[in-house]
């Protein structure tokens, strides 16, 4: 499998690997995938009072494309509002990393991981913060 240079760069120098304490203020966690399928992604976001994602971390079990997709989205979500982050699409991830067709599922999983983290955030902190995020986006 020939990987693009961007995939190899993210694989060899992954950005934002690690974990936040789930109990910390503003931290939300999304975990998607299954070991049986060969991919599990954990994406965490840390959202400030203004509804902006201040920091993000990931851990991924999966192929190089899965690691690169999750590494890339941690970079992308940082500085965005929660609502802005929710608009990231797998097609953008796949295009940025030049993923081959057989690896598109890795980008879909990364999009799902963002959505899962945002859903966790809204569940934990209520819709009010999501509105705050929307205002910040306007």
């Amino acid at each position, binding site marked *: 499998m020939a990987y693009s240079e961007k995939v190899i760069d993210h694989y060899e120098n992954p950005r934002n690997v690690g974990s936040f304490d789930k109990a910390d203020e503003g931290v939300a966690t999304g975990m998607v995938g*299954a070991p049986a399928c060969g991919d599990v*992604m*954990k994406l965490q976001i840390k959202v400030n009072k203004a509804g902006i994602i201040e920091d993000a971390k990931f851990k*991924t079990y999966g192929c190089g494309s*899965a690691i690169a997709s999750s590494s890339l989205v941690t970079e992308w979500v940082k500085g965005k509002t929660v609502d802005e982050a929710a608009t990231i699409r797998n097609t953008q991830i796949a295009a940025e990393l030049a993923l081959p067709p057989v690896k598109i599922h890795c980008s879909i999983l990364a999009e799902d991981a963002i959505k899962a983290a945002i859903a966790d955030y809204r569940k934990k902190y209520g819709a009010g913060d999501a509105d705050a995020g929307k205002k910040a986006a306007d």
Partner: protein
Amino acid sequence: MSLAIRKKPIYLDYSATTPVDPRVAEKMIPWLTEQFGNPASRSHGYGWEAEEAVENARVEVAKLVNCDPKEIVWTSGATESDNLAIKGAAHFYKTKGKHLITMKTEHKAVLDTLRELEREGFEVTYLDPEPDGLLDLDKLKAAIRPDTILASIMMVNNEIGVIQPIAEIGEITRAKGIIFHVDSAQATGKVAIDLDKLKVDLMSFSAHKTYGPKGIGALYVRRKPRVRLEAQMHGGGHEKGFRSGTLATHQIVGMGEAFRIARLEMAAENERIGKLRDKLLAGFRDMEEIYVNGDLEQRVPHNLNVSFNFVEGESLIMGMKELAVSSGSACTSASLEPSYVLRALGRNDELAHSSIRFTLGRFTTEADIDFAVKLIKERIGKLREMSPLWEMYKDGVDLNTVQWAAH
């Protein structure tokens, strides 16, 4: 490719293929350029010398496995030998019965051939291996029916290197009058094979797993008691009608020389390689959550198949680009297929996805192994730091209790 690997990786994938031994390559060359005759040409010296070379090579193949050279049929490789043996015998003996027996851990060349026979109306029993990869003889006995005509069990498994009890299986099948086919592609030069003692009726061989060229193999067809086959390739009636097609003299010479070297050197070579394999395994001993796949005793010395739990195989291979190894996780399509061999052993998906096959060979050195151990430890450490499964394991989470969203 823009990211060309600067130095060639260390080759630890000898079960995929081996380099042609330089001594073999040297012997082959004149048969391409100067002595190019067709071994089937009876009317001139070009043909006669080619025929003599082919027959000398046949003797060498026969000597390695202790059979009569007349029992060796040249083919294009083990896949063709498996097809000829299984389809040929099934078609010839179909009036005796329609039941065939094999194992779930066989090579695809056997499994897919049997699937084709199922489409033709034959019935196939696929036996499960024990967790160590070996066949339980009682399960074989229980699977035999009055209409069983053929059993096909490989000698050495290509993924996990375990050696099946071929002698014992042969006693069972011979007593029941069942044709016994053995794929020995991974066995030659690694396991002593004595067809005078083994009650095997058909045996497949390949040259390129034993330092010979690709594209040449052979099928052993027993003469006493005689085994009959229906030919799969029709034409000029070469190889006593078993397999038509002009013989590839240079390839055959190469296989003969490769098997001659294997016969003379295998004892010393296996001892040396076995020590290197043990050194490789010893290098992993202080790592957590590693699992050797397949029995370590009933195994060729060249093979080590290890699962590094909580690390996915393809990312592992990517992280070890300085090593040429194989993964049990075939991530080549949208649906990830873990190794069917490891799944048949009862390994869970995580472990099947996390496996690496190291296969050592004639040109593996101690320095190669030292380098590999150091590299693997470093890269596994890095990937585990990145793995949410490793984190959960370290936090004491039982992964079997987690509700995963399959995708």
